[in-house]
């Protein structure tokens, strides 16, 4: 069969972010997949060099709307390490609590998007409704639904009050109940299991060799999680357990994220129970001494790494950011290899890059029509039947049979 190359993006009505994909098809089968990234490059690393550390905290937080706490924490950790600051325990616990709440909102969002991509929109409606519970809590704690601005170099800006703790625990109870229901749905709903199983397969060895991170790697049974391997904030005291799965496919990635939600609820409860008393920040110097630090953070999407080099002034010499999607996007080509075009949206969505891509919008202009305009629905249908017939696919016999039955 003749190969067809389909460009998707960079500007495409169904894309939520500008990215460009090129898919080579033979019939419905994907022969090759390539991505051209960079349309969202805003020069933040360069901009950081021109601004003070304090300004950078706010700039860095805006790298991503969903993982905003991820990036700001990863950055301040590096700066604190260079400056030799002893961040108070209570601040580290608050960072972990906000980090887990962020993971909950991100994973619930993902579950909804995944449901939507496979035509299970009820799941989207349910999870996004429940997600509002955690968004409200984040707004209550930090003042914002996203871009929380809670991190300072040397600690956090806002303390947890008694009322906050009661509210968090109440929300966590509600969300845990809901998540248990979603786990039951995902383990029992046969349509969902069949739709997701065997789709976007990434073998254990491929996950290792391609450097997959986060739930993408953990669903291929790679027991790697920065929270356990390279603990930051308060994770070394929270008894964190890595959630893995050996399905190696989109179904496995769903189970891992659901498992991580349950783990997040447990972590938040433990953190609140053990929350130390004391200060929430120490004063940071305006000028950071010469040095360098490599900081890692487990974002909802996987390992986020920042490298910061200082030169003794109030501005960094170099800030380098590697977000988890850049590591995972390289696994997509492998997952799609020899797959079906119809699986493309869910496979791409399964690494959680925050967009879907094959809702289609086609405007067809009739070549026969004198006036420029759209084709009528009935004409489009006839055109389709004629087109398939010319390719040797004739459904008229089967249609006749169906008509007789009716």
């Amino acid at each position: 069969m003749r190969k067809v190359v389909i460009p998707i993006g960079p500007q495409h009505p169904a894309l939520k972010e500008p990215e460009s994909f090129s898919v080579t098809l033979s019939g419905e089968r994907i022969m090759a997949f390539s991505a051209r990234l960079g349309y969202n490059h805003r020069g933040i690393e360069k901009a950081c060099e021109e601004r003070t550390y304090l300004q950078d905290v706010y700039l860095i937080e805006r790298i991503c709307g969903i993982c905003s706490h991820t990036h700001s924490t990863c950055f301040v950790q590096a700066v604190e390490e260079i400056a030799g600051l002893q961040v108070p325990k209570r601040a580290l616990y608050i960072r972990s609590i906000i980090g887990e709440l962020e993971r909950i909102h991100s994973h619930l969002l993902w579950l909804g998007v995944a449901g939507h991509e496979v035509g299970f929109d009820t799941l989207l409606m349910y999870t996004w409704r429940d997600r509002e519970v955690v968004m409200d809590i984040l707004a209550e704690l930090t003042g914002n639904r996203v871009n929380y601005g809670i991190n300072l170099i040397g600690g956090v800006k806002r303390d947890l009050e008694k009322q906050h703790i009661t509210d968090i625990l109440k929300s966590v109870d509600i969300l845990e109940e809901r998540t248990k229901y979603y786990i039951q749905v995902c383990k029992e709903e046969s349509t969902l299991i069949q739709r997701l199983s065997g789709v976007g397969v990434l073998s254990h060895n491929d996950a290792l060799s391609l450097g997959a991170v986060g739930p993408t790697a953990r669903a291929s049974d790679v027991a790697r999680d920065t929270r356990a391997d390279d603990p930051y904030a308060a994770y070394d005291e929270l008894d964190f357990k890595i959630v893995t799965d050996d399905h190696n496919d989109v179904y496995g990635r769903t189970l891992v994220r659901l498992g991580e939600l349950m783990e997040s609820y447990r972590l938040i409860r433990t953190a609140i129970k053990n929350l130390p008393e004391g200060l929430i920040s120490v004063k940071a110097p305006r000028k950071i001494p010469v040095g360098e630090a490599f900081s890692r953070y487990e974002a909802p999407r996987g390992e986020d790494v920042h490298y910061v080099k200082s030169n003794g002034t109030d501005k960094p010499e170099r800030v380098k950011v590697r977000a988890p999607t850049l590591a995972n996007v390289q696994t997509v080509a492998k997952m799609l290899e020899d797959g079906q075009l119809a699986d493309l949206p869910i496979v791409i969505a399964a690494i959680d890059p925050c967009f879907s891509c094959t809702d289609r919008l086609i405007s067809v202009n009739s070549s026969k029509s004198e006036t420029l305009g759209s084709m009528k629905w009935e004409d489009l249908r006839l055109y389709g039947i004629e087109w398939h017939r010319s390719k040797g696919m004739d459904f008229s016999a089967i249609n006749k049979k169906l008509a007789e039955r009716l």
Partner: protein
Amino acid sequence: MSKEDEIVQSLTSEFPLLQDKAKVQRIRRVVADVTPDKFEQVFAYAKDNLGFSVLCTITGLDEGSTLGFIYHMSRTDGITFSLKYSVPKDKPVINSILQYFTNADIYERELEDLLGVKVEGLPEGNRYPLPDDWPKGEHPLRKDWKPKGAKIDTAETQVKEAK
């Protein structure tokens, strides 16, 4: 002896030139500086013999007269190894590490675009992350590169404006 110290010891006994150049920065952080000619040997040794099986990313630095490259690798117990070397700015050419890590592709293309270094052995492909019509010879992460016509909102300009 801690695991980090064992790594440093293993590196220095295998490569005597790393004496004083390989250090434990803090718990779970090992760093080392090498000369360009020895880089690949040390890099391969760290990957194959010391268990640094994940390439986290590559950081490119403009150091004035030289360009520096830091290869951040990690292993399953959370220890990371940052291996650095520099090449002169007037001869900005480095070798690709694709044969060791297939996922290095995108990180090396980023170095080519943002730092203006030629990566030998990188196959033809899409550039990353600058636009296709980006002017030749303009590399934003070079220290002498300044965004043209853009107003930079720094602490100083903010103070000036306030006055």
